[in-house]
């Protein structure tokens, strides 16, 4: 954790942590330890006995749900935040919203990949396949992650700050519209889904599992907030470095314009 060695809580002095984020960070770690304990020791295997007397269910694979489901929700949260921040950027044109869009997109991609990987691992024992093209949510999530990987690729290309911010915002908006179109078209493409539609609503789920799942949401949200705070502050400090570099370059430029006068700054 990058905060461990930071000796000051002052963000402006070059650290991305504060007392609050340190507390939050430790809470996330503790919460994750508790989550592991709950998921492996407390929650029973997922089994049901059918009317024919067969034992069915997800067995141990159900424990992956405590990573997979929060990841999926956090990925969509990240992309949703990117969408809103991009809209806000185009409206108000401030660095704050631009950094917000960038930071949440990175975290969204992180959780998006985690969702796909854990989903794939879970699908192998449960659906007997690593990947299922007929599943709408799976394919939509994959396309969404690809769209935002492209978004991050654009952000990585050096360009004038305002130009890049504006282009990125448009890409995020188009990407969000695109998710809806992809979702609809994939749905029509294979009009079926393997995902359980209503695990929670139908109350087929055990109380222990439900509690642990809720707990995993809470831990996930805290982790998301912690990551976002640090990523945002890192980007903010990077902007400040840029600003200082511009000021330095301006002084050099003034010295160039008037060698005798340059040290004093602008006439």
């Amino acid at each position, binding site marked *: 954790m990058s905060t461990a060695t930071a000796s000051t809580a002052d963000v402006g002095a070059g650290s991305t942590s504060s007392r609050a984020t340190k507390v939050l960070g430790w809470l996330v770690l503790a919460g994750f330890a508790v989550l592991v304990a709950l998921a492996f020791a407390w929650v029973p295997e997922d089994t049901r006995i059918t009317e024919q007397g067969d034992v069915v269910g997800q067995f141990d694979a159900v424990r992956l749900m405590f990573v997979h489901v929060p990841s999926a929700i956090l990925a969509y949260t990240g992309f949703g935040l990117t969408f809103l921040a991009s809209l806000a950027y185009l409206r108000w044109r401030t660095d704050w919203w631009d950094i917000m869009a960038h930071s949440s997109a990175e975290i969204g991609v992180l959780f998006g990949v985690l969702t796909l990987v854990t989903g794939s691992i879970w699908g192998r024992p449960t659906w007997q396949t690593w990947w299922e093209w007929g599943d709408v949510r799976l394919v939509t999530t994959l396309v969404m992650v690809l769209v935002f990987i492209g978004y991050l690729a654009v952000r990585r290309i050096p360009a004038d700050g305002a130009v890049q911010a504006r*282009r990125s915002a448009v890409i995020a908006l188009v990407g969000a519209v695109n998710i809806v179109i992809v979702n*609809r078209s994939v749905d029509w493409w294979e009009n079926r889904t393997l995902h359980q539609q209503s695990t929670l609503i139908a109350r087929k789920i055990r109380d222990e599992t439900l509690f642990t799942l809720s707990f995993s949401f809470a831990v996930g949200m805290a982790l998301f907030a912690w990551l976002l705070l640090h990523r945002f502050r890192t980007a903010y400090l990077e902007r400040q470095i840029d600003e200082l570099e511009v000021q330095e370059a301006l002084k050099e430029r003034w010295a160039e314009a008037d060698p005798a006068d340059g040290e004093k700054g602008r006439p």
Partner: protein
Amino acid sequence: MPPATGAAVLRDAWLIAGKDLRIEMRSRVGLNQIVPFAVTVLVLFAFALDTDQEALRTYAPGLFWVTVLLAALLAIGRSFAVDLADGAADRLLLSGIDPIAVFGGKALAIAGQLVVLEVLLAAGVVLMFDVTVYRYGLLVCAGVAAAAGVAAAGTLYGALVAGLGARETLLPVLLLPVVAPVLIGATRAFQDAFGAAGAEGWAWLGLLAGFAAIYGVFGALSYGALLEEA
């Protein structure tokens, strides 16, 4: 300052489209490079599927549209490279032409080129993959609608990456996930046109038309924000 009227926007869009198409007819980059590229891709598909005539017939619609999308990347990149080659892009900004007209004109020219490419490739698929066309009306409508959708989305993303470094590699990364619905819809429509059972081609045509409409409107609206910069 005369406000941009609808008629002026149409006139300017037509001017831009005419300019782009005339340049393409002159330079023959499309005919000499993009079409041979597309035909080569079809040949590679045949090699990959190992002379299995039945498989080729079955997958012809999908292979056709993947080929069109790959060729479209080249056509879109070319459309913007022409403007960037010797500073004409700056002059377009300075001309005072409404951004909506620039978007419409470029998209129209790209769509026109894609339709020509589709006609040639369709002939190639019929000859090389041994498919039979049962519904010509559906084939034509789906071809035009898909070309319009790809051109609209492609023009938007072409402008997004124009002037950025590494735009040749950036365009595929950004555009291909976005046009995935076109691939799905156009493939199903062509399956129907080629006589596959239960493909419901006309319903998929609706998706293609909707895609073209959404990206047409979105592109026209956001093009101004993109051009305002620099």
